[in-house]
């Protein structure tokens, strides 16, 4: 490992943090250049992430690479322990990409409530927290970075949002903090029993030293915290309000990255560290996931607001991710990770496009939205249609693979309740159909119909620049899912390897 390997991850995390501090210190005189500065910082960030991708040894994607280990707070066994493997690397790249795209979007559409310096500073702080969560390899550090995103997102919603933004922001933060405090209790319990907070060592121990009942307690505590974030039905109720109230870039990052922190945590921490506990709770998680899928689809169908509809559809999509995790099967977990990325790209794009529509029509109410988008703004209409079709899981686009693999995983779960999971699989497949139904309804409502006579601006260059990378990746990953699966699979095998053994011993 050469010198720059150790520096890559610290640079990735400290760059946005340093940028945010610089904006804070610089004062009001930099107000005008703040967004351009943000674009510059996020560009360097994305380049760093791509260098990481290029320097990543794909043959050893099950091994943590670019390791950093600095003992920070010995009293808590807290180390700044960082690294990426095939599970976290795609999320790091996705986060860096969305970070840059949201900033580019802000360049063209500055925040309506003004104060671009504060806005950009908060986005940068958010970026540090999001990236940090995906590369942290210490339980307490993971928790700390998990919390870092809360205050910036709260301010983004409460000050630059719309409608009942303050209430939505409060519900978001209180709900998530309650969840993460419970998660912290789980972490500290694991620490007190095993004597370590190092996620790599804990994964190697693979539950050794933790009795089944201890694992069950820990997995419930940790799982609740992560499930709030994911969000899992019935802990999802903060999400629709937060999404509806958040400004466009807030929604994009909320759906594109923040939700993934929950499911990522399950794969990174719960599965390898608490295998027995995971086996016990898997059927319940699977059942709740499927309820989430059906509920999300059913609730989406009933929505009259476009942003709210996409928010509820996220509950459904994340249900597939959770179902894949619950299968504890390598195909299912790979599908879950694929679904994470796909949902980040697709829903990110959807929120961008809806934000663009709102810019033009000042509304996201389905009943008030002027009809005939295809005719009035053909290119904008095309992107909107593309995003909706991708979201409903059309084969050939990225959204398909995550859900398909999750279903395959549920068909052959690595747990004893095979029939339960097959039943769940059937119900989840039905959920896919429902998803198609409501998205087609939206397309017909917004895209088709007698066009409103008023002119409407078509896709602008900034919009194209900030949306096309997402659309392109949706297509590429849809056609070549192996690109991503080859990266995640070895790491997933490692996460699950010994848990499969545990089952063999039991059966």
């Amino acid at each position, binding site marked *: 490992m050469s010198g720059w390997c150790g520096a890559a991850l610290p640079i990735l995390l400290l760059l946005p943090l340093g940028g945010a501090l610089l904006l*804070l210190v610089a*004062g009001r005189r930099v107000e005008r250049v703040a967004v351009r500065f943000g674009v510059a910082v996020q560009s360097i960030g994305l380049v760093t992430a791509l260098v990481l991708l290029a320097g990543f040894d794909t043959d050893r994607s099950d091994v943590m690479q670019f390791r950093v280990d600095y003992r*920070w*707070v*010995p*009293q*808590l066994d*807290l180390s700044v322990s960082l690294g990426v493997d095939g599970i976290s690397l795609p999320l790091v790249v996705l986060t860096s990409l969305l970070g840059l795209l949201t900033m580019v979007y802000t360049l063209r559409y500055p925040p309506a409530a003004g104060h671009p310096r*504060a806005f950009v500073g908060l986005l940068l*702080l958010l970026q540090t*927290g999001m990236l940090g969560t995906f590369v942290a390899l210490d339980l*307490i550090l993971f*928790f*700390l970075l998990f*919390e*870092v995103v*809360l*205050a910036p997102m*709260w*301010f983004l919603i*409460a*000050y630059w949002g719309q409608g009942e933004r*303050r209430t939505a922001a*409060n519900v978001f*933060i*209180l709900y998530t*903090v*309650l969840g993460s*405090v*419970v998660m*912290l*209790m789980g972490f*500290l*319990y694991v*620490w*007190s029993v095993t004597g370590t907070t190092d996620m790599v060592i804990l994964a190697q121990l693979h539950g050794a030293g933790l009795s089944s009942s201890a694992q069950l307690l820990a997995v419930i505590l940790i799982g609740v915290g992560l499930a709030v974030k994911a969000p899992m039905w019935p802990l999802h109720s903060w999400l629709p309000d937060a999404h509806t109230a958040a400004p466009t870039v807030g929604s994009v990052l909320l759906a594109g990255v923040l939700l993934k922190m929950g499911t990522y945590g399950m794969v990174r921490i719960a599965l390898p560290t608490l295998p027995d506990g995971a086996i016990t709770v898997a059927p319940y998680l699977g059942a709740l996931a499927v309820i989430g899928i059906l509920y999300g689809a059913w609730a989406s169908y009933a929505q009259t607001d476009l942003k709210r509809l996409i928010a509820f559809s996220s509950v459904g999509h994340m249900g597939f991710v959770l179902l894949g995790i619950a299968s504890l099967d390598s195909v299912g977990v790979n599908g879950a990770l694929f679904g994470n990325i796909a949902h980040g790209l697709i829903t990110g794009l959807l929120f961008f496009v809806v934000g663009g529509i709102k810019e033009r029509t000042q509304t996201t109410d389905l009943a008030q939205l002027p009809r005939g988008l295809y005719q009035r703004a053909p290119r904008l209409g095309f992107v909107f249609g593309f995003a909706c079709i991708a979201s409903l899981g059309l084969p050939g686009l990225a959204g398909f693979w995550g859900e398909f693999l999750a279903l395959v995983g549920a068909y052959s779960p690595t747990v004893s309740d095979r029939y339960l999971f097959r039943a769940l699989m059937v119900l989840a497949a039905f959920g896919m159909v429902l998803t198609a139904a409501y998205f087609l309804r939206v397309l017909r409502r917004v895209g088709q119909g007698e066009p409103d006579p008023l002119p409407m601006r078509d896709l602008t260059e900034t919009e194209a620049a900030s949306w096309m990378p997402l659309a392109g990746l949706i297509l590429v990953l849809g056609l070549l899912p192996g690109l991503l699966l080859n990266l995640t699979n070895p790491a997933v095998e490692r996460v699950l390897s010994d848990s499969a053994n545990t089952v063999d011993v039991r059966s």
Partner: protein
Amino acid sequence: MTIQSVDFVALLPALIVAGGALLVLVADLFLARGPIVPGVLAVLVSLGGLAVLPGTSGRETLCIGEYCTYSVREITLSFQGITLVATATVALVSIVVVKDLAIPAGEHFFLILCSATGALVVPATTDFVSLVIALELVSLPTFALIGLHSGDRRAGEAALKAFLFSVTSVAVSLYGIALLYGSIGAEVQGTMSYRAIFVATSQVDPTPVAVAGLVLLLAVIGFKISAIPFQAWAPDSYEGAPIPVAAYLSVVSKVAGFGALVFVAVSFQPWSQVWTPVVALAAAVTMVVANAAALRQRGAVRLLAWSSIAQAGYVMVPLAAFASGANVGPNLIAVVGYLAAYTAMNLGAFAVVAVVARDRPRARIADFTGLAWRSPWLGISLAFFLACLAGLPPGVIGLLVKVQVIAVPIASGAWWLAAAMAVGTVIGLYYYLSWAALLFQRPVRGEIEGLTRPGGGAIKIAVAAMLAVTVTISVVPTLAMGLLENV
């Protein structure tokens, strides 16, 4: 049985501060009346005490035979360090406030240094008699400090309230010590030192009388740290007192109280099954109820008063998780770590409130609307202190010390206590955040003016110092969280 010799070096920090108190009084008599001279003197004296602190490490004095009444241990040094830093900060804030409110300056700083002397002695005492005397030395000057502000009708009432509560709880605790002495006096052979009590309580089981005595003793400490149900005086007294005095009560007086609680906990560790349920219950109720009460406050000082009650609840948690025969090192490290961090973030918040209160004497929470626009650094500093108190990043140190504290009951299996702390923290988040949010709200036209009163440089130095401390310990948390190990 004679006192052979006095090691003045061991006593030096307390002597410097006590001497400083007299010097302040003399200077006030002969030099020009005004807050600058006594105030600066008080700051220098506190910092001087801090400077000589390392040299006192490990010394013992005032010995009778084998037992020494005054001994400087690790925990002594960390408590004294916190006390001295806090006293210096309070003195800085006082320089401005004393002038604004026309409080007699000499008396004010004299009383503060007197009380601080007591707070320095508390963590060094090794027996109950000196402990009670030292605690009284902390308390008595504070009643006068609260009441010195003659311009405010509430001040007298506040002072009286604190006085009555204190006197009652001292009487109760003396009764408790008498009961304890009656029941284990034979075993400890006359010296109520913590080592003797530890040995004695390891050998005999608690009698009902001893239990009653122990619980009564906890009453006076409950008053000092204003734990529920002994909190009732705090919000009124804080509100009636000048703001630096409220800050002093919420930090120095509280730290002294925790010095006493640690003393009791360490002495009676073998009987921990008797008293930990009491402390645990008080801690749990304090964390939940005080945070809930803080939700309803409209005045900044009252809110900080309830918040400091709640924060004391967090500090009690590691002590409530004492177990006989267990290594209590991590518990004490957590207590000291939390107190160190709390001192910096709480004094910082009080200092900003003191600045705002110069223009808006009532210092309602609503008066802080848009502070970050009017004076960005004050607003951002206060937001950071509140984030620390809430335990929400970027207030990293506030989060980490909470993790350190909650880890203790989880390791010992006291889940309900950890759950109470979790609930309290989440409630707390709401009011700290609401306040912080207000700072960034664009003020309505006409509200933007304000903070026009010139001067106040000393308070701003205090704010900057506390900001520097909180940021430093957020980056290098070991400085606070490992204070007990590293001194």
